[in-house]
C-alpha cells in the first residue's frame, strides 16, 4: 500500500481541527438553510401570483443569483461591499449572506415549481366539493406541495453543504482550509499527506451529506 500520509491526521490536534473545520462548514450551511427555507417558501408563493411586477422582480433576482457563480457572489459580498460601502463583513457573515441569497433563490424556484405542478383540476375538484379557497389550500394543495417539496429541498441542503468548500477563498477556515494547512505544515515530514488528508475531507463530506440524501430518497419513495 502506498504511503498516504494518513499519520499526519493523528499528529497533535489535527483530527480535532479538521472536524472543527467541518463544524464551521456545517454551521454556515445550517444557518443559511434555516433562513432560506422560510424566505424561499414566501418568495416562491409570491412567484405564483399574477402580479407582473412582483413576478418580474423575483424572476430577475432568481436569474441573477443563478447565473453568477457562487464564488463571484462571495467575492462581491466579501470584498465588493468593503470597497463600495466600507462594510467590514467577516468571512463567515459574508458566506452566510451569500448562501442565504442563493438558497432563498433556489428554494423559491422549487416552491414555485411544486405549486404550479399541482394540476388546475385539483383546485377545481375541491371547489366542486364545496371547499372554500382557504380550505382548498389547507387540505389539498399545501399537503401535496410539501410532499413534492421535501425531497427537493433536502437535496438543496446537501448542495449547500458541499458548496461551502468555496468559502476558504474568502478566508473562512473551514474543513478544506484546515486540510490545506495540515498538508502545508507537514510538507517536509510527510510529503504524501495531500492524498490522505483530502481523502479524509471527502469522507467527512460524505458522512455529512449521505444520511441527508438517504432521507430524501426515503421520503420520495414513501410519498410517490
Amino acid at each position: 500500500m502506498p504511503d498516504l500520509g494518513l499519520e499526519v491526521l493523528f499528529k497533535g490536534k489535527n483530527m480535532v481541527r479538521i472536524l472543527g473545520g467541518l463544524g464551521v462548514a456545517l454551521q454556515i450551511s445550517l444557518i443559511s438553510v434555516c433562513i432560506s427555507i422560510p424566505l424561499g417558501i414566501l418568495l416562491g408563493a409570491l412567484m405564483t401570483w399574477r402580479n407582473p411586477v412582483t413576478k418580474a422582480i423575483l424572476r430577475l433576482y432568481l436569474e441573477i443569483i443563478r447565473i453568477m457563480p457562487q464564488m463571484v457572489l462571495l467575492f462581491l459580498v466579501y470584498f465588493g461591499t468593503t470597497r463600495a460601502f466600507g462594510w467590514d463583513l467577516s468571512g463567515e457573515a459574508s458566506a452566510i449572506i451569500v448562501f442565504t441569497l442563493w438558497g432563498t433563490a433556489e428554494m423559491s424556484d422549487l416552491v414555485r415549481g411544486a405549486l404550479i405542478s399541482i394540476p388546475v383540476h385539483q383546485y377545481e375538484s375541491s371547489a366542486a366539493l364545496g371547499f372554500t379557497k382557504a380550505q382548498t389550500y389547507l387540505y389539498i394543495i399545501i399537503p401535496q406541495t410539501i410532499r413534492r417539496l421535501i425531497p427537493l429541498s433536502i437535496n438543496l441542503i446537501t448542495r449547500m453543504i458541499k458548496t461551502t468548500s468555496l468559502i476558504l477563498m474568502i478566508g473562512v477556515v473551514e474543513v478544506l482550509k484546515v486540510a490545506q494547512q495540515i498538508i502545508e505544515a507537514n510538507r517536509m515530514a510527510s510529503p504524501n499527506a495531500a492524498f490522505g488528508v483530502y481523502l479524509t475531507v471527502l469522507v467527512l463530506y460524505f458522512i455529512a451529506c449521505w444520511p441527508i440524501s438517504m432521507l430524501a430518497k426515503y421520503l420520495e419513495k414513501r410519498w410517490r
Partner: protein
Amino acid sequence: MAESLLTIEHLTKRFGDALIFDDLSLTVRQGEVVVVVGPSGCGKSTLLRCINALEPIQGGTIRLEGETVEHKGKNLPELRQKIGMVFQSYELFPHLTVLDNILLAPMKVQKRGKEDVKKEALEWLERVGLKEKANSYPRQLSGGQKQRVAIVRALCMHPEILLFDEVTAALDPEMVREVLDVMLDLARQGRTMIIVTHEMQFARAVADRVIFIDDGKILEEATPDEFFEAPKTERAKKFLNMFEFHREAKQDDRK
C-alpha cells in the same frame, strides 16, 4: 311532472371572442336524467362547468332550487355542496387514501361526524365493489376504480344533482362498463343527473331526455327513443351517422 330543480335561462358564454353558448335555456326536473350529446368542442363540458360556476358566464342566469349560482358568488361553497361533479380525469386527491378522499369534504365542509360519514362511505364503496380498497391510495387503483371512488366521493356530500363530465372518456374499454353500471344504478334510484357522454348506447339506456348541442344552442331535445331513432335535425342525423360510420369502418378493418 316533478318540480324543476335546475333552471338555466338565456345562458351566454364566451371564451374571449369565441361564442360558446348563445341564449341557451334548459330546465332539469327533480329525478330526471338528462344526457347531453354533441360534436366535440360544442361546449358540453363547458355547460357542466358553468352549472357549478367553475366557469364565469357572460349572460343569463343559472338557478338551483331558486338560488342563483354565480361565479365568485358568496354562497357558492354552499351551493356547490348540492352539485356533485365527477370529472373525466377522476381528480382524486393523490395524497389521501380512498376513504380519506371521500371523508374529507363531508367532515371539513359539512362538519359531519367521522363515524357517521365513514359508515356511509363504506356502504357506498361496498355497493360499487370497492370496499377492500378503502385504505388504498389512488395511485394503486385502475382508472375505472378511481372513477367509481370519485362518484362515491360526490355522493357522500348528498348532492341534489350530479354532473358527469365524460367520465368514461379516459378509461380503457373494459373499464367503461363498471363505471356506467354504477351510473345506471344511480339513475334507477331516481337521482337527478346531467351526463355528458360519448357512449351512445349508454345514453339511450340511461336518459330520460337527450339534449343535442351544436353551435352554442340546443338543437334538439327529445326522449332517447325519438332522438336515436328519428332525429329531427340534419345536424343530429349527421352526428349520429358518424358513430355508425365508425362502427362499420372498424368491421371492414378486421376483414
